[in-house]
């Protein structure tokens, strides 16, 4: 079982929703770029990892032989940019047989209803 947070998530200035895995497309990389730049501009940024976007957080990633740089170096930079509000879909974790222990950064798992509220309460949302 996954420990789902029962406290109401605190909205940030900008919510960036990440729905794609690290390899295969450039969506994740360009989404994380926006998050980092917005934080550099002084915005409080929250990240929501949904669906296969959860794989972005999986431990033990490498650039590998695929010819892509990978996104784990960007994730390693989040803390430096004061992005420490990381939400993840609890259902998405369950469906992939993952737990918070499999992820490289501390996350707050959210139920579907909490994710709806999150989207409603953020003034700005960008989806990648």
């Amino acid at each position, binding site marked *: 079982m996954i420990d789902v947070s029962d406290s109401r998530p605190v909205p940030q200035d*900008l919510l960036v929703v990440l729905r794609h895995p690290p390899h295969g497309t450039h969506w994740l990389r360009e989404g994380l*770029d*926006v998050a980092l730049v917005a934080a550099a501009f002084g915005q409080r940024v929250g990240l929501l990892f949904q669906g296969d976007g959860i794989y972005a957080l999986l431990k033990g990633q490498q650039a590998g032989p695929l010819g892509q740089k990978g996104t784990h170096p960007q994730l390693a930079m989040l803390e430096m940019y004061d992005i420490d509000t990381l939400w993840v879909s609890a259902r998405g974790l369950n469906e992939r047989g993952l737990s918070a222990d499999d992820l490289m950064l501390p996350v707050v798992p959210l139920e579907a209803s909490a994710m709806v509220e999150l989207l409603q309460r953020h003034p*700005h949302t*960008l989806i990648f």
Partner: protein
Amino acid sequence: MLNYALLLHAAPYSHQAALSALRFADTVVANGHRMKTIFFYHDGVHNASALMAPPQDEVHLADGWKRLHQEHGTELLVCVAAGLRRGLLDVSEASRHGVMSHSLEAPFELTGVGQLVDAMLTSDRMITFAP
């Protein structure tokens, strides 16, 4: 009157999203609102190509964006990082990178993602069009 900004992720002629974004932008100004900024990101940067040559009986997307700029002052901002790696370079970037030709011209501008954040903060609405 509201200030609108659009974020376009879709390549031209590959997905409906690019055409829908142009139709939406035209509708924004037709309804008396201001179409302030269009930010081209991800594969959307290809909309800014000065080299596109679609058949004459199809909508010319690059000309559509330029018309918005000429008639309504819409900023046409292209992410420089997304653009350079996909071959969208203006004269100065082409020269700086030593490539034979350029593919992007005014009124399209190469800018950083910071301009996207700025557009989001200074517009009443930011609408994303993605494939």
